[in-house]
């Protein structure tokens, strides 16, 4: 454990950095003070509050140097694969090849936030007919056109079908701009018919065996395409080893999530947890380093929990968060309003559940891919959310909509009603665009009101003096 845990500003991080450096902090090659990224145009960093540990610094530096890492991979002769939409399955396969680096071009959706719209990516997407009626992931289109954020991949792989309408449309536009895409299909996950052979997927959902077989056949095609690109065969042994490494990431995240969401007081801020969880879907272009980064973060959190230390007041309202935010600052805002995150459903729970290791590896990946919350019904999502709300002891649910994102528009109300009916906890829906500065007061009001509601319920339950 590096210091008394607290949330600090970027300026305070400069001081903290010098202090840690003098104390002998070991830094990876991509280390350095956090504020240096502002010079690269990451202006939003000046407005965020961060965890003050060396482990958190490493996490942020790892995230913010991904573009450099990809360019280094290209220089070193590695093949670069952009894996789009499937959120966590294809990267597991891609990282089984020594000469392949995979990344997640959809991750460009955070560039307008981090660069406070100065990058112009959304304007480029606008000019290509992909306007604000689409999810901010349309920034990816701009990133491909400008070429300023990541090297153009040697291969693009994208899942379509029962995934995300916005991303599919954007990816098709990208294809039309001369970036060929290897498409694979994800069927809409359905409940097995009576007497139909079924398989229990990671996360506990049942699916027809024939659907798993179909996804497996699609992943066979993906595997063959990757083998051709890499010039190397991917046998079962290698794939199993890759799954084993991916499961190490998931295992670290499972413990990290459990501690972060259940320990009193809260041992790590919501923002760092969001970044950490995201590593599960793409490894930030380096799987081995992902394991090291998460290992150090977990060690820090374990130390804090054992010492009874945290970053927030012990009475923080316990909020379950649904969907990732387009503006990172909103995770800070929740904590500024007296809340803490106790459970998340960022639309990739299938990338957090362990990949089965007792079945053939491609079958295991197919099961995982089919467990994608986007591929199933909103009711499945809501039920998983209810189960996790209970598991982590959350007192309210906050559904954060992404403007233009079709899934959010369609699913928010369904999830909200099911959660409210099943658990009788307050549910709040908010909408978070990439930069929320102008709407910060109204967002604050809603989140503060949710926290007040939780606290009033607590007082009523505890039988002490009521709110009035």
């Amino acid at each position: 454990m590096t210091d008394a845990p607290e949330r600090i500003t970027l300026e305070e991080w400069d001081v903290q950095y010098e202090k840690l450096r003098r104390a002998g902090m070991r830094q990876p090659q991509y280390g350095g003070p956090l504020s240096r990224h502002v010079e690269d145009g990451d202006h939003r960093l000046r407005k965020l509050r961060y965890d003050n540990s060396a482990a958190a610094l490493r996490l942020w530096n790892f995230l913010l140097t991904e573009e450099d890492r990809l360019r280094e991979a290209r220089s070193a002769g590695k093949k670069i694969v952009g894996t789009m939409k499937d959120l966590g399955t294809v990267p597991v396969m891609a990282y089984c090849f020594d000469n392949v680096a995979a990344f997640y071009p959809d991750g460009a959706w955070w560039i307008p936030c981090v660069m406070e719209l100065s990058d112009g990516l959304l304007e480029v997407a606008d000019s290509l007919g992909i306007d604000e009626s689409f999810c901010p992931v349309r920034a990816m289109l701009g990133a491909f056109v400008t070429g300023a954020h990541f090297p153009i991949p040697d291969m693009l792989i994208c899942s379509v079908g029962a995934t995300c309408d916005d991303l599919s449309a954007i990816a098709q536009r990208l294809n039309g701009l001369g970036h060929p895409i290897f498409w694979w299909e994800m069927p809409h996950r359905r409940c097995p018919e009576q007497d139909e052979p079924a398989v229990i997927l990671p996360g506990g959902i049942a699916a027809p065996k024939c659907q798993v077989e179909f996804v497996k056949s699609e992943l066979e095609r993906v595997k063959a395409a990757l083998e051709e690109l890499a010039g190397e065969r991917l046998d079962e042994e290698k794939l199993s080893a890759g799954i084993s490494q991916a499961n190490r990431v998931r295992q670290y995240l499972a413990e990290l999530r459990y501690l972060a969401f259940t320990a009193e007081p809260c041992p790590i801020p919501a923002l760092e947890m969001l970044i950490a969880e995201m590593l599960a879907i793409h490894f930030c272009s380096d799987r081995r380093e992902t394991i090291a980064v998460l290992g150090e973060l977990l060690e820090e959190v374990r130390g804090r929990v054992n010492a009874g230390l945290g970053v927030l007041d012990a009475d923080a309202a316990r909020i379950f968060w649904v969907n990732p935010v387009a503006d990172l600052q909103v995770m800070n805002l929740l904590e500024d309003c007296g809340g803490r995150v106790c459970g998340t459903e960022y639309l990739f729970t299938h990338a957090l559940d362990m990949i089965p290791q007792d079945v053939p590896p491609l079958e295991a990946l197919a099961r995982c891919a089919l467990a994608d919350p986007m591929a199933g019904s909103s009711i499945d999502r809501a039920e998983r959310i209810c189960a996790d709300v209970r598991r982590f002891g959350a007192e309210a649910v906050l559904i954060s909509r992404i403007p233009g994102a079709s899934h959010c528009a369609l699913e928010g109300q369904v999830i909200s009603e099911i959660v409210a009916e099943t658990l009788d906890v307050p549910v709040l829906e908010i909408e978070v665009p990439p930069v929320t500065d102008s709407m910060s007061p109204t967002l604050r009001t809603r989140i503060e009101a949710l926290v007040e509601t939780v606290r009033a319920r607590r007082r009523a339950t505890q039988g002490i003096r009521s709110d009035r």
Partner: protein
Amino acid sequence: MICAGIDAGSRTIKVVLIDTDSLEIVGKGLTDQGVEQDKLASGLFKKVLKSSGATEKDVAATVATGYGRNAVGIADTTITEITCHAVGVHRLMPTARTVIDIGGQDSKLVRLDGSGKVRDFAMNDRCAAGTGRFLEVTAVRLGVELDTLGKLAAGSRRPAAISSMCVVFAETEITGLLACGTGREDIVAGVQAAIASRIVAMAGRNIEPPIVFTGGVAMVSGMAAALQTALGQTVTVAPQPQMTGALGAAILAADRNR
């Protein structure tokens, strides 16, 4: 001793003073909101104190609420308008289970439990289509005073259909309706129905009576009727609907002072 509630809304600032023990209102006042929010709130606070025969020394605690609550320097603490409206309405109408508050800039639907505590709430999004702002824009576009809208709407025979979910687009629709010769009374009635339908959409499927309507827009005649039609349930306008947030803030100040 007395306690004070200050509701710094987007259109107006309201102050309510109550007796800390009896919770009876001993003073109240209202002024338009402006750029210097703190100064305006402080000025109104002093004016209401003076008219009530009290001084600042008599004030045990002050709670600020509303959109501009964090700009009110004289407040001891801030509480959101959702909690304050719930408390204020419960004080005035203890059986209320649903509070609809339509203010100048936003609208809220608050569900209460039997003891008047907030069970759940919803607020309109960034769009102003379900708020008093829509009525203001309409009044300007039609060249009439805001307080005459209700009277105009009462004369409507065939309310115009306003389909836009956005005030800016709706203004364009109003222009189009005027160009087509649609009467002002039908346009106003259409706008009121559009606001009501936004509230119904926000409410979802479950809305438990009794329903109490509060906030500045509750004073616009015709709005309660429009809501009633859209919801298919009786809607009662709270007594002094503009003041319920400030009243709730004052009651919460008294509670915290005990």
